[in-house]
């Protein structure tokens, strides 16, 4: 058998961003032995990049807020494809999850009377995002990290999982290697929590870090799990567009929450055109009303810049396409203009948006307190993910496998509201940890056959044995996939392009299977990238297949050959699963009827 080290735990957590850390903390609190596996160093995961805030109906900034309004906002934002039970649990539990962070050392910005302050964000009826300037994600991950290191977790840093191990139908652990020396590792566990985040590196322009290669989605899929809603990939409306090397880096929605406006090359605030019917009654008629909303006038309605991300992104693309874009192919986002209303606006902007000030100053040479930024859409988040049971977060078809955070699907439907990802990972991270620990306590030890381990070892080491000079190399192949997905499966899709993309993905798969990495097992990013390619190709196929099936435009999914939203398509989700022939299959899964009390809430909230 291939040489390897073996680690045994009650629960292993794969991924150490917000969801993984929160899950690990919860599982450990029950007395379970917990192994936490992270692809990077601890505390570096993509959660650090979340900026604007964490959504929770604390009702500190506006006492009219409560979980029911948050629930209704989330469902409306998701175009009613959300798993309503997840949206309900999320809205109900988010406030407690945010408050407990301060007991672990977090320090959020305050209201004048000393409570956690909250800011406006797109699609949220009231100021709802608890925040620390524009570095909320860093605050959260560091808080969870600094708490977690005292909770008895066994942390395995810079370790990549390449395969889930099975005991019959039950998930029984994971096969992995360490980046440092390339040593092979076997983790045996009674329960496995997937918390690997998203898939953004499948696209060329993305706000996501290198780790976002869809590992969790792909590993779970290969182990027999279902993926849901994979056609819904969120393109955040405001990424940097210039200079080219920083293209895609996120510009927080908090800029618009603090009064930032979008304008085109003619200086027009184009967002006032084409307000979607679902939001007409809650959107300001004039810039003056919009500003009053920003400064807290409770009779004023939201400025159109705070409409949902799918709509804002589409509007920006339209301006650029019709020739009214900024010099580098975006539009203008202007926060400097608030000097018309605020004395000492320069200090105000630096206080509220310090990272944005720093980011534009350092990387683009732009002073955002004086000049507008240039922004355009960037791949940001995948609503789709591993299909789980709403309360327990256990995968629907793989006992012992749980998922939380971005790699789990269902919570956000067709479009996620800003701020709901950080609350999602806290609420469902905790739940996954709790239920996984309970599952582990109720079930016997696992057994993993040597043949599985041998096969996994062989697959992991194969790229090092192949000829590295036979193709363009792993990085260039990843680039080809990213260009393909950006072009054919990006913000505007159509049938022929998606079909072509499926063919191309098959060809790329063959090339990836033959790809040689070169170099040794010691800290070799070429080898790591070659292995990541398999996950990226699986999730890309899932996105394209589901997108081709959904012949309408809804939420983040836009079809230029089916521009309208069709009511009959609001009744089901797309579920993907590996068929008995090894090919990916897509089917429609009807959305279960919502209980009357939740229907009433949606009715009441309008």
């Amino acid at each position, binding site marked *: 058998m291939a040489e390897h080290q073996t680690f045994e735990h009650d629960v292993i957590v794969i991924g150490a961003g917000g969801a993984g850390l929160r899950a690990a903390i919860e599982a450990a609190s029950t007395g379970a032995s917990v192994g936490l596996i992270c692809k*990077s*160093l*601890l505390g*570096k*995961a*993509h959660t*650090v*990049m979340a900026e604007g805030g964490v959504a929770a109906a604390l009702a500190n900034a506006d006492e009219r807020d409560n979980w029911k309004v948050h629930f209704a906002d989330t469902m409306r934002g998701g175009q009613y494809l959300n798993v309503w039970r997840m949206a309900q649990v999320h809205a109900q539990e988010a406030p*407690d999850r945010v*408050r*407990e962070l*301060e*007991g672990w*050392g977090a*320090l*959020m910005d*305050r209201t*004048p*009377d*000393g*409570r*956690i302050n909250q800011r406006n964000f797109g699609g949220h009826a009231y100021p709802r995002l608890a925040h*620390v300037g524009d*570095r909320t994600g*860093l*605050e959260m991950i*560091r808080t969870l990290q*600094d*708490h977690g*290191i*005292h909770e008895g977790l066994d*942390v395995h*840093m810079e370790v990549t999982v390449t395969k889930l191990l099975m005991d019959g139908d039950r998930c029984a652990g994971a096969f992995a290697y360490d980046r*440092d020396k390339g040593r092979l590792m076997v983790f045996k566990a009674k329960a496995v929590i997937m918390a690997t985040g998203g898939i953004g590196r499948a696209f060329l322009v993305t706000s996501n*870090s*290198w780790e976002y290669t869809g590992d969790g989605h792909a590993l779970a899929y290969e182990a027999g799990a279902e993926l849901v809603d994979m056609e819904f990939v969120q393109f955040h409306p405001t990424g940097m567009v210039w*200079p*080219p*090397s*920083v293209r895609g*880096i*996120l510009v927080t929605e908090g800029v618009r929450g603090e009064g930032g406006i979008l304008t085109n090359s003619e200086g027009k605030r184009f967002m006032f055109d084409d307000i979607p019917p679902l939001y007409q009654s809650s959107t300001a008629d004039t810039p003056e009303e919009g500003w009053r909303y920003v400064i807290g006038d409770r009779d004023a309605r939201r400025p159109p810049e705070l409409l949902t991300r799918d709509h804002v992104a589409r509007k920006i693309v339209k301006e650029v396409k019709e020739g009214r874009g900024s010099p580098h192919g975006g539009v203008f986002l202007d926060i400097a203009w608030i000097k018309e209303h605020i004395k000492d606006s320069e200090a105000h902007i630096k206080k509220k948006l310090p*990272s944005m000030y720093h*980011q534009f100053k*350092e*990387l683009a040479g732009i002073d955002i307190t004086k000049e507008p930024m240039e922004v355009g859409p960037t791949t940001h988040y995948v609503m789709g993910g591993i299909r789980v049971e709403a309360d327990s977060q256990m995968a629907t078809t793989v006992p012992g496998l749980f998922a939380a955070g971005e790699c789990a699907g269902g919570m956000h439907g067709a479009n996620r509201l800003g701020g709901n990802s950080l609350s999602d990972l806290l609420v469902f991270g905790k739940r996954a940890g709790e239920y996984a620990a309970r599952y582990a306590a109720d079930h016997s030890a696992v057994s993993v056959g040597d043949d599985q381990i041998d096969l996994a070892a062989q697959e992991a080491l194969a790229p090092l044995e192949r000829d*590295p000079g036979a193709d363009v*190399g*792993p*990085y*260039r192949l990843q*680039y080809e996939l990213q260009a393909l997905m950006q072009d054919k499966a990006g913000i505007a899709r159509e049938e022929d392009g998606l079909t072509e993309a499926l063919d191309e993905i098959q060809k790329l798969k063959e090339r990836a299977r033959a790809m040689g*990495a070169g170099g040794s097992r*010691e*800290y*070799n*990013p*070429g*080898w790591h*990238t070659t292995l990541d390619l398999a996950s990226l190709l699986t999730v890309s196929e899932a996105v394209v297949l589901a997108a081709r099936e959904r012949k309408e435009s809804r939420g983040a999914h836009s079809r230029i050959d089916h521009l309208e939203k069709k009511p009959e398509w609001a009744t089901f989700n797309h579920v993907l699963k590996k068929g008995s022939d090894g090919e990916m299959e897509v089917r429609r899964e009807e959305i279960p009827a919502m209980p009357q009390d939740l229907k009433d809430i949606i009715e009441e909230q309008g």
Partner: protein
Amino acid sequence: MAMTTFKVWRGDTDNGALETYEVEVEQGYVVLDAIHRIQAEQAHDMAVRWNCKAGKCGSCSAEVNGSPKLMCMTRIEDLPADQPITVEPMRAFPLLKDLVTDVSWNYEVKASIARFAPRKPDNDDGSWTMDQYDVERPQEFRKCIECFLCQDVCHVLRDHHLHDKFAGPRHFVYVANMEMNPIDTGDRVAELREELGIGLCNITKCCTTVCPEGITITDNAIIPLKERVVDRSYDPLAKLIGMVTGNGGD
């Protein structure tokens, strides 16, 4: 676009040298872009740590032209154009390979420090009431992205290798964040003096100079902590009171 010469450290502790690469540099490139290009086109196995490429995760720390920097925030056009750009790993930590060092010591030190210890919640919903003015001071320390550049430049670690006696600026910032948190009840003064060795810092402010987050490490974190240690340990009156009451002193 201009061709630029890079000299990048390749190898491990036993065997290594600066190797020369010619790279096509595009507008707005940061050093990490050039390293990625070398990886993609010339050296697939070049080891480098990075995550966000946006100055938020603190992974891509290295020494660029001899200065501790985040590679993702160092623009090539800000470096002298008439000489090759050298990129080397941090020197205060053991080298693993190429630009990657073993920073695990930092994680061990942090785990050894007495954890955050909040008072009971002020309110029935489990929340605490804190003034913005009071949270702003520790919020500065919470901006730390754990890039460990301050540790890299600190001469106590870099030149004198006192890793077993001295926790380094990063961890004084970490302690300051807890000590100045309005709801913390912990007391880490003895620990600062003994295990963490704060007395070894002679406030040359090198750490503050290299901090990519602009944290005023020396003035706002280390000096106030040193004052607490001095007040507790060396103020004769406080010492006497402590001995009589059984509090403080040590």
